[in-house]
């Protein structure tokens, strides 16, 4: 099968009605605002541009490369869309992609569509924008900023969106946080590397062929700041919330049982996406690494934020 659904699309049935409806409301608000913004920026061009680029992102998700032993990596596209189009247009493009995926391929549910747009379209874009802009500012517009920013944006957007999925499942009572968070987070830290590398490759191509396109995304001044702050808040919130949630899923007894859960639960969870199994790493080691990386994530987020504020103060 050419089209393999990414584990990021939540099917119907997994979210409680409450969570699904709340995320629908937020999504409608943000998408409505983004539609108006994009209309103002692009005018008559918006329909063909957004529609065709959504199709391009979808088609781009089919491109894959072999990682090892028949497994493969591919693209989700939130970061590349954000970098090339700016945050508001990216929200619209991803909304279109995720919407059509749900309607045609049942990749993600219809009631859960609000949540899926929220995770990939809104969180993915906000985090990408925050990371990319921060690195761009740090690099002072040099080319390495493009690549480092692109990689970091792609990687973090995947990881944070996955953490959001895990938290939503936990909030819905469908999957205990102490399993969902490290499992989703851990898997997507690996998937995110592929996303990052492909994003860098795509940026290198665009940089060589049409450098001018790398700047259309910057024409989003005032609203762009809102996305930047939003991305920061989301990234920090999830980075702090997820370990907290995963530490106290269901009272205190989890401590006694946690190791057992991880052992049993991770087996099926890794089977969930056989493409991404990394052989040779025992689950225990993985759990440690996951904890380590979540920590790094927070440090990275905070450091980047601080560096940015300092730069602005001295500038």
């Amino acid at each position: 099968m050419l089209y393999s659904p990414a584990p990021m699309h939540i099917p119907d049935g997994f979210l409680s009605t409450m969570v699904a409806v709340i995320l629908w409301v937020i999504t409608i608000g943000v998408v409505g605002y983004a539609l108006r913004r994009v209309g103002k920026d692009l005018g008559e061009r918006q329909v063909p541009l957004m529609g065709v680029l959504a199709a391009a992102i979808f088609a781009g998700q089919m491109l894959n490369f072999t990682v090892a032993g028949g497994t493969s990596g591919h693209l989700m596209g939130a970061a590349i869309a954000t970098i090339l189009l700016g945050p508001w247009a990216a929200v619209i493009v991803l909304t279109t992609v995720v919407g059509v995926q749900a309607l045609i391929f049942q990749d993600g549910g219809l009631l859960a569509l609000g949540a899926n747009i929220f995770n990939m379209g809104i969180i993915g874009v906000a985090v990408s924008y925050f990371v990319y802009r921060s690195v761009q500012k740090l690099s002072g517009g040099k080319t390495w900023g493009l690549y480092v920013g692109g990689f970091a944006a792609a990687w973090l957007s995947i990881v944070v969106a996955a953490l959001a999925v895990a938290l939503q499942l936990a909030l819905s009572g469908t999957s205990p946080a102490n399993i969902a968070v490290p499992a989703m987070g851990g898997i997507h830290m690996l998937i995110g590397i592929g996303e990052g590398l492909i994003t860098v490759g795509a940026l290198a191509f665009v940089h060589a062929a049409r450098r001018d396109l790398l700047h259309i995304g910057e024409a989003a001044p005032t609203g762009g700041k809102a996305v930047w702050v939003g991305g920061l808040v989301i990234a920090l919130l999830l980075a702090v919330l997820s370990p907290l949630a995963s530490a106290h899923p269901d009272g205190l007894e989890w401590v006694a049982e946690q190791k057992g859960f991880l052992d049993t639960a991770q087996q099926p969870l890794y089977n969930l996406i056989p493409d991404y199994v990394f052989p040779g790493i025992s689950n225990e080691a993985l759990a440690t690494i996951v904890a380590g990386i979540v920590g790094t994530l927070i440090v990275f987020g905070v450091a980047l934020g601080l560096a940015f504020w300092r730069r602005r103060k001295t500038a």
Partner: protein
Amino acid sequence: MHLHFLDPYQPRNSPVHALDARLKFVLTLAFILTVSLTPAGAWPVYILLLALVVSAEVLSGLGIGYVQKRALLALPFVLAALPVIFTLYGRPLFSLPIGGWTLTASVEGLERFVSVALKSWLSMQAAVVLAAATQFPELLQAMRAVGIPRLLVAMFGLMWRYLFVLVDEALRLMRARAARSAWGTEAGKRSGGSVAWRARVTGGMAGSLFLRAFERSDRIYVAMLARGYDGEVRALPLPPLRAAGWFLLAAGLTLFGLLLIFAYAFWG
């Protein structure tokens, strides 16, 4: 190239196919909402809902087998809910000793798990029937009818139209890459390059796809302008829903309402 495999629409001569897309769309959404709202453990209601969706499958001429095959796509996600059997507190069901630890499954946990799996399975089937029995252009009209912004609907339509064109481009790119992915002539040499290099090449393909799409959107825009496009999205008015349609809609929604009342009265 022909990408029929991407289009889930299965032409059949059935009453479900003939039904107004607006009705199908609204009823499917209502069905999924009903499934979502049905409390855990209300098994008789789940059975009634299953009967409803299965009769739609049979009526549509798609066949139960076809729908089940597609509905299984969501199956892997069910594993994400598996641990809940052991983490939810309640009457113990059985224990699994693993290493030094014991896992205890609870009745409530199992009930939660089974109802999540059931909900997902039921909703999935409804969505599959909708997609397989409705041409996407009709679905677009349905979206317009329920008040999704025209601009967004127009983008959905354009994306769907160019999905086939661009996926075709993506497949041709991969085909060209495969044709040049050859082994070295020297024995013992590893071919294929590093993973990072392969990922970057794939990125180049994504970038070129994106650029070509960008430039294509310019040409489409010009073609639209040439035919009088002015930024506003226009469409012919939808034909009004007939009395029978309204009746079906009302009956369907009432039925779902009754099912929910029944479910909450006994299991809520």
